[in-house]
């Protein structure tokens, strides 16, 4: 297979397969979670579980001062990474085109050099987080192969995208092909790793918040 | 003659702190056999010349004795040992520093009664009030003597 055929393959059949597995995987994982159900709660609520659930979804984006000081690097680098990743994925002109072809509609984008800067910052944040994970006694202890796999499949698309844009290493065409392939790998493994938190975080915060709401706990 | 607690408490509250400690010491001495560990603290209370510093030392000792003898959460109750806890609490109340001492004699009396009751907690009967009667007599004698 030559470069052109490779690029056509990753843009065509490979993309469809990856997208299919991604969506099917998401549905499966959510089904695996939700089908377990939750018992009815007979305790008289003090507050409103619904409101509590919604409140926690938003409240957990922030933290109290003392907690922030104890986990400052994790929180700051974590936010830089997440915000950067969001900008790179959703606000790059080239990516908006891809979304348009899948959903049928797009949205405004930022200029590519700006997004490029975000990509660099995002990668730096990821590297900082990796080093921290390897150095911090608790994080190192907690980390399983899955944590490192998740890091790699997130980092490589950023790196290959950057390299394609800056015409580094291989031909732009090849780099682009590898970039798209790396995204497809990310899509395929996504539902089966902790990357699922992208979706389940809202569910978890909801459940927790509903319990807090039931008990009338406001923090 | 003192026959009930309202009179008893009133008479005690009328006394100054030093006097309260002295009569309270008599109450605790009545049950001291149940926890001799606090003897020194009780002696300090009984002695009207005890200094504030000496009282503070006694307070620490009595508190430690109380903690030592309390029943741990979830462990099997041993009422005999618990008697020692109440004796220590009585002593603690006696030698509390002036700022903290609310009614040292009364508290000592109440805890001393509990200490006595612990001995026959599983078969409580009217004899439980014997300790309060003894305390009334002790107070009357004290008031006579001063």
């Amino acid at each position, binding site marked *: 297979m030559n470069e052109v055929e490779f690029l056509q393959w990753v843009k065509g059949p490979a993309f469809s397969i990856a997208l299919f597995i991604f969506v099917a995987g998401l549905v499966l*994982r959510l089904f*695996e*979670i939700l089908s*377990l*159900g*939750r*018992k009815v*709660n*007979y*305790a*008289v609520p003090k*507050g409103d579980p619904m409101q509590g659930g919604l409140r926690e*979804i938003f409240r*957990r984006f922030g*933290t*109290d001062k*003392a*907690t922030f000081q104890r*986990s400052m690097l*994790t*929180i700051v680098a974590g936010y830089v990474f997440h915000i950067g990743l969001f900008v790179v994925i959703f606000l790059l002109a080239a990516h908006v085109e891809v979304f348009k072809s899948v959903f049928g509609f797009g949205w405004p984008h930022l200029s590519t050099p700006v997004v490029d800067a975000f990509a660099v910052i995002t990668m730096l944040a990821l590297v900082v987080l990796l080093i921290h994970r390897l150095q911090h*006694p*608790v*994080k190192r*202890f*907690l980390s399983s192969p899955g*944590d490192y796999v998740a890091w790699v499949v997130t980092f490589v698309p950023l790196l290959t995208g950057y390299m394609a844009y800056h015409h580094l290493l291989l031909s732009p065409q090849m780099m682009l092909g590898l970039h798209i392939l790396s995204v497809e790998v990310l899509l395929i493994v996504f539902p*089966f790793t*902790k990357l699922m*938190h992208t979706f*389940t*975080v809202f*569910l*978890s915060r909801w*459940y*927790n918040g509903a319990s807090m709401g039931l*008990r009338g*706990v*406001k*923090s | 003659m003192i026959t009930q607690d*309202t009179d008893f408490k009133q008479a005690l509250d009328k006394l100054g702190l030093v006097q309260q400690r002295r009569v309270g010491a008599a109450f605790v001495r009545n049950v001291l056999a149940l926890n001799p560990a606090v003897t020194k603290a009780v002696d300090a209370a009984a002695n009207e010349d005890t200094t504030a510093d000496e009282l503070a030392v006694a307070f620490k000792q009595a508190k*430690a004795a109380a*903690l030592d003898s*309390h029943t*741990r*959460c*979830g*462990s099997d*109750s041993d009422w005999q040992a*618990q008697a020692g*806890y109440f004796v220590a609490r009585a002593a603690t109340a006696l030698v509390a520093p002036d700022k*903290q001492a*609310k009614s040292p004699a009364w508290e000592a009396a*109440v805890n001393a009664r*509990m200490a006595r*009751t612990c001995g026959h907690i*599983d*078969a*409580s009967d009217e004899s*439980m009030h014997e300790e309060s009667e003894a305390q009334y007599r002790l107070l009357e004698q004290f008031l006579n003597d001063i």
Partner: protein
Amino acid sequence: MSTLTLERGINAFKAQIDAPMASFFSSCVSCGMCAEACLFYTENPEPRFTPIYKLEPLRRVWEQEYTLIGKLKAKLGLSKPVTDAELAEWQELVYNNCSLCGRCTLICPVGNDITYMIRKMREGMVASGHAPEGLIGASTRAVQIGSPMGVKLPALQAQVRHLEKSSGLEVPFDKEGAEYLLMLSSMEIMNYPEYLGAVAKILTNAGKTWTLSSECFEATNSGIQIGSSDIARELVSRVVAAAEKLKVKTVISPECGHAYTALRWDGPNLIGRPYTFAAKHIVEVLDELRAEGLLQTEGFEESKLTFHDPCQLVRRGGVVEQPRNLLNMVAKNFVEMADHGTLNWCCGAGGGVSANEDAEEVKMKAFQRKKKQLDELHVDTLVTACANCRIQLEEGMEVNQMDIPVLGLTEMIAEHLVERKGGAA
């Protein structure tokens, strides 16, 4: 109880897993923030005390049983089955080093309710025979005698007689139709008997009808702490039966955090139906009386004081403002700890820790967190509303040679109480 085996333990794990837990396990990104929220870690920084790690065997069971990828991993030998030796190893993490305080649950950025999961994990630990001796003893006594500390009715009756004589108050037993049924904890009956006097004084003065029950006086629930729903159900059913027999409107839970959790939140779900009465903590009742104008006080505490928030009452129970409303009635110099209210730190002794002899050492290490909070504040007095916290705080102060008296909130209010005209003598 039928024989305790690994198989029963694993089955118990499987039965406990529900959608929230699956969501929680799926959301964890191994960020480690839960460790920094847990006093058993912060005061004894060994990574294995990280809250989410305490759940690892349960997580593996979930993954292998309820996810496709987990089933595949197990088949390929990439995920090992949970062994009896592992559960034995985890006993220390699940019981000695966790008071179910709920701070990790509050802090976790992805929203995991780790406390909820540890409570459920204990079900499997009990079924597999890996629960601490002390808790087993307490639970057995609770079921057989009616009190985890073996306190029997005559002991309570003796205390009541003392109280009636020394205060002139009436302490009724089995008064049908009373508004309030007062429950007690064995800790209070044994170590802080003046609590009963304080409540009697306040309720009587407020003109409220109340009663004790000779059939059930124990509010604490060892079943919750050890993690056996069967035992927990048996114990709470006795309270429910007593309350329904006497047809009271409200059952008052004593100054004990876990008793409140057991009665207020777990009870209805254990018996599988709502109560026919309200369940309130004494502090909630006192605050209601205050709001109704039935609780008037005079005089103020002179000392600079602060409040230790019992975890189950405040962070897990939603009773945050009430203790403060009450304290402000009688204190002019009340200062808050830097982390206060729902963010306050556990005393280190809840959730079965204080009844667990194996946890003596780590319990005192955990107290260092409270010590640090107090060292920052320079107060003369510490007030709280839980008998178990009180003993732990007193012991901690003793060991660390701190000279701060610990007082109970209800007793403090009772001391400042103004007799109401028209209140029953």
